[in-house]
């Protein structure tokens, strides 16, 4: 490349789950200088082809002076935060030899250790985004065999955990979103889409606001999203379930029945199913199908009887059988049954707005008004035509944020949100509350095809077994998701959807009944920094220091790879090669009218000795004697797309290794074939020039309802008979093995979720630590930052510079009146403390936050990452305690800590 050439090279950025963004990089004389949107993508991208601020950090990332640019080996055998690792440069040959020796020793000894856990573990960063950078490494993982990918680095506390599990269970919605282009009224409980929704989220919501959509932001602080909303409701932390229950109360106890979507409830949900005296469905004796009361016949009939007139409400008597956990017959004969809807209405009776006012500190009149506005906008009975098909049109939705979703109260909030949609028929229809993607059900790239008929007229769901024959107290990996969390299922993502903190917690003391949790013999780490990003970071650091052999793919030194034995410099975003799927519906607000593929390609020469991840994976496979299985995995489609289809094949020879370009050339050809039904087989060079290619994706496929109608299925709402049964069975299995440490979590398996004192959970946690709530009166929360979230870009000077234009990036946000009361001025150094820990930072005084709430944006408190270690920012993760008590039944915890606050002194000098 001569110094005079100027090129614009297409590629993608997938630093966060709201991607990918399609961009071009201007390259001048071989040096990347400028990021721009890929204007060619404007027509097919749902965010106008624009690029988020994080992508603009990629140039600085490429030329970052603190990059690790050669493999490094640790020379200090002692590991600890205060130990200098003594990293020295080594050759790739040395590095591979070192790693392969460890891996081959494991293969010789056995892939599982004495506890039955995989000897090799791997942890990757949030939301599956590292998979868009790790080339063919997933094929190496597939070839390897059992691997523990359940050591958490943020999963469960920093994600949308309850939504992932319950959303996918109820409506194939691993992530839930409003149908923003058509929604007219959106209640957003803490969902901060303007900070975490990426380009498409921001684009769609900006259009919706100008169009006139009213968004009510319910959140303890006035977030970016709150700022952009029509109304801000400053709710007490962790009381969202009470607010949502009160909205439901207004809908079913104060509004006229016909204001609800009664046909939807009767035909498309289990509302008419009869529930027996023991809380389980009344079933037909012969078929064991749930019964409903047919008003026309005047008798109970199976739920799928043609031509029936389902009674939505009432109490009836039926000749039936009631079957409980483990197929136990609980009752048989003439049995009293109540419709699930009636039980739900009764259940919601106590949750009036007046009751909720006392819980969540939102005036009853305001709750009532919001509920009625929701109803006013629901357009019951109206329809809309999408691509020639007439669908219900219900332009109201409810979205939930991270801390609302996670930990105790998550189940209740998810249920209430989904029920608010169901009550007005706004679930999975235009304008309503819809899902974007599936990660638990398959196929993962087609949400609609993942719908398969299951029991009782509902969708099938691959629960982990709880029956006596198949349940096992010996989990396959350390976080025990398969044993403890039925909803986590057992697919490729399930390991990360379990209680991922257990892998760390149980290293100290494994609870009764589980095999002793052991450190992995080899731990791979990539695009993640659990020593900063998880809760209880000090404890996580102490534990990773015990791991005997850690291989970290390293961009710069950081707090996690401080404990590594080998650092491997992988080629970064603008240096490496990979093809990924784009479009369809996926992750956060990503609703496209197209689908296809995009290529990430080297726009500049790789710096130093950094290597493309695919080359690293191929080399590791070869040195471990796994080439055949590794290439076979690539052929199967583990690296994006299967290499064989009807009438065409570009499969690779499994008897030998292949170069990076040869592999991706084959993948590119397969992708072309998939898009053209085998007519075209464009290779890597074509994709390098084009950057992306798509085909149309019907907007009809944004909505699940037509698929359910086609298959004559119902949403599994409102009554959670299956969850109650599964919970009872799980409890029985655990108790049979004298495992009683999960009893509190088992209480969550209720058919109708009830309000519990969720804020009190954090009071209890405080008391366990020896504190009294009165002494720690503040709720410390965190929130995503548009500039940083998921990006791993904390060391980018430019990102920091622009982020500081937004309040909270310089310190902890404190309410003005609170600050005055405590004598704190803007910029003062403050300390936030729990009974045993503290963190310090600067005060940022704002009015847009509750007086009892403190907000620390993002995740900081770095001590090893160059540049970031000088920020001096407080971190919630430093204070958060990992505990069973704070873990809900899905294995998640919430980003909340009760703290004290005091002024330390005047403005602290920035350390840089």
């Amino acid at each position, binding site marked *: 490349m001569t110094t005079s050439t100027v090129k614009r090279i297409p590629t993608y950025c997938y630093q966060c789950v709201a991607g990918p963004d399609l961009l071009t990089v201007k390259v001048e004389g071989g040096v990347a200088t400028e990021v721009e949107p890929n204007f060619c993508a404007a027509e097919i991208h749902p965010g106008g082809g624009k690029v988020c601020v994080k992508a603009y950090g990629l140039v*600085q990332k490429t030329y970052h002076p603190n990059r690790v640019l050669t493999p490094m080996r640790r020379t200090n055998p002692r590991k600890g935060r205060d130990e200098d690792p003594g990293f020295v440069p080594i050759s790739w040959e040395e590095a591979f030899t070192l790693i392969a020796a460890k891996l081959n020793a494991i293969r010789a000894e056995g892939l599982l250790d004495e506890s039955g856990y995989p000897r090799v573990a791997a942890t990757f960063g949030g939301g599956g985004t590292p998979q868009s950078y790790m080339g063919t490494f997933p094929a190496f993982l597939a070839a390897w065999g059992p691997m523990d990918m359940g050591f958490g680095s943020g999963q469960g506390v920093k994600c949308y955990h309850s939504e992932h599990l319950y959303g996918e269970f109820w409506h194939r919605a691993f992530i839930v979103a409003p149908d923003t282009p058509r929604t007219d009224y959106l209640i957003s409980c803490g969902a901060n889409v303007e900070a975490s929704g990426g380009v498409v989220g921001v684009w769609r919501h900006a259009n919706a606001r100008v169009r006139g959509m009213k968004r009510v932001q319910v959140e303890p602080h006035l977030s970016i999203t709150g*700022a952009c909303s029509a109304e801000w409701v400053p709710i007490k932390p962790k009381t969202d379930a009470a607010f949502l229950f009160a909205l439901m109360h207004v809908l079913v106890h104060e509004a006229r029945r016909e204001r609800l979507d009664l046909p939807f409830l009767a035909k498309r949900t289990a509302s008419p199913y009869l529930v027996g005296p023991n809380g389980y469905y009344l079933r037909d004796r012969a078929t064991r199908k749930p019964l409903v009361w047919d008003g026309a016949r005047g008798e109970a009939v199976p739920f799928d009887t043609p031509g029936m007139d389902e009674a939505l409400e009432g109490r009836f008597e039926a000749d039936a059988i009631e079957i409980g956990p483990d197929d136990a017959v609980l009752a048989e004969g003439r049995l009293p049954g109540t419709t699930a809807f009636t039980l739900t209405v009764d259940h919601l009776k106590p949750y009036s707005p007046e009751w909720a006012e006392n819980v969540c500190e939102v005036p009853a009149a305001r709750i009532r008004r919001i509920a009625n506005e929701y109803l006013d906008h629901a357009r019951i009975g109206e329809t809309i035509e999408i691509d020639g098909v007439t669908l219900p049109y219900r332009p109201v939705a409810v979205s939930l944020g991270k801390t609302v979703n996670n930990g105790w109260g998550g189940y209740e909030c998810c249920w209430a949100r989904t029920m608010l949609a169901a009550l007005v028929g706004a679930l999975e229809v235009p304008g309503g509350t819809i899902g974007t993607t599936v990660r638990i059900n398959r196929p993962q790239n087609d949400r609609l095809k993942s719908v398969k008929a299951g029991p009782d007229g509902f969708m099938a769901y691959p629960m982990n077994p709880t029956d006596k024959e198949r349940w096992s107290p010996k989990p396959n990996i350390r976080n025990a998701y398969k044993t403890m969390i039925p909803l986590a299922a057992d697919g490729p993502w399930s390991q990360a959807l379990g209680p991922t903190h257990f892998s760390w917690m149980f290293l100290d003391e494994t609870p009764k009944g589980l095999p002793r949790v052991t450190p992995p013999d080899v731990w791979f780490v990539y695009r993640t920094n659990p020593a900063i990003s998880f809760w209880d970071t000090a404890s996580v650091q102490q534990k990773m220091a015990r791991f005997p052999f850690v291989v970290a793919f390293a961009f710069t030194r950081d707090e996690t790879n401080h404990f590594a034995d080998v650092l491997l410099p992988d080629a970064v975003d603008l240096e490496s090669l990979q093809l990924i799927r784009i479009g369809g519906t996926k992750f956060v607000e990503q609703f496209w009218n197209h689908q296809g593929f995009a290529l990430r390609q080297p726009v500049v020469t790789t710096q130093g000795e950094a290597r493309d991840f695919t080359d690293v994976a191929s080399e590791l496979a070869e040195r471990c004697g796994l080439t055949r299985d590794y290439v076979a995995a690539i052929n199967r489609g583990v690296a994006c797309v299967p290499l064989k289809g009807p009438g065409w094949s570009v499969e690779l020879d499994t008897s030998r290794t292949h170069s990076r370009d040869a592999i991706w050339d084959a993948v590119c050809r397969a992708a072309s074939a998939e898009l053209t039904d085998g007519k075209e087989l464009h290779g890597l060079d074509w994709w390098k020039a084009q950057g992306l290619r798509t085909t149309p994706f019907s907007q009809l496929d944004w909505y699940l309802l037509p698929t359910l109608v086609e298959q004559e299925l119902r949403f599994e709402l409102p009554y959670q008979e299956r969850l109650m049964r599964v919970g009872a069975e799980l409890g029985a299995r655990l108790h049979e093995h004298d495992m009683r440490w999960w009893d509190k979590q088992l209480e969550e398996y209720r058919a109708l979720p009830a309000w519990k004192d969720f804020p009190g959970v954090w009071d209890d946690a405080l008391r366990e630590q020896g504190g009294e709530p009165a002494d720690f009166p503040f709720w410390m929360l965190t929130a995503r930052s548009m500039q940083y979230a998921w990006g791993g870009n904390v060391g980018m000077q430019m990102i920091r510079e622009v982020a500081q*234009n937004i309040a909270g990036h310089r310190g902890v946000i404190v309410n003005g009146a609170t600050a005055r009361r405590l004598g704190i001025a803007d910029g003062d150094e403050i300390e936030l403390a729990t009974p045993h820990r503290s963190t310090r930072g600067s005060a940022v005084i704002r009015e847009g936050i509750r007086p009892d709430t403190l907000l620390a944006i993002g995740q900081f408190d770095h001590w090893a990452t160059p540049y970031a270690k000088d920020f001096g920012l407080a971190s919630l993760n430093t204070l958060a305690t990992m505990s069973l008590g704070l873990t809900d039944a899905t294995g998640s915890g919430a980003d909340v800590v009760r703290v004290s606050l005091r002024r330390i002194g005047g403005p602290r000098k920035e350390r840089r």
Partner: protein
Amino acid sequence: MTRWAMVADLRRCVGCQTCTASCKHANATPPGVQWRRVLDIEVGEYPDVKRAFVPVGCQHCEDPPCMHVCPTTATRKRPDGIVTIDYDLCIGCAYCAVACPYQARYKTQRATFAYGKPAAHESKRHDPDRLAVATKCTFCVDRIDAGLATGKTPGVDPEATPACVNACIAQALTFGDLDNPDSNVSKLLASNQHFRMHEELGTGPGFHYLWDQALPTGGIPALARLVEEAMDLA
């Protein structure tokens, strides 16, 4: 005639700073220099608080105070409204920076880089002519001129449009010709409530803000003052 102008829709802006970052890329500004940036302002007291994000930068005034104080005529206004600085003429006296009511001007005395020493991309684009002189937003005038020369329309065709507008992920920034009643900016201003900062100074800013939400007591002038105060604090 042509009058290039920027419209910032405050209903849309989310403060993401993508425009800020894209400006830094397009114009290779050094650390701390933000020809385009977005303020984060608050109005009111808890719980009656409004928060808004306000893009700011050179307003390309009709009657620019910076131009009048420039002792060397380095600062000029083109017939199309774009205020320019001739770095060859600028002596770095900074009178303009003091005179500008919008705090839009920067002066960098010595070369600064993100991490001390220049990285490859910084070396490639470092321009010593920009040291010890006043700099500011140019409305990406080079793009406009190059685009016009090839028949492109600024504000419509990306090649002829300021980088911040191209980059905006909320469609909050719009650029176009105010003298053309059919331009995107003219249509936006004709159909929405809008204001300019420091209207009372008679500078005739070429930067217009759309705002349709409830206004603080005192109406648009009061809102403009809040933005101005925020700028002073920023």
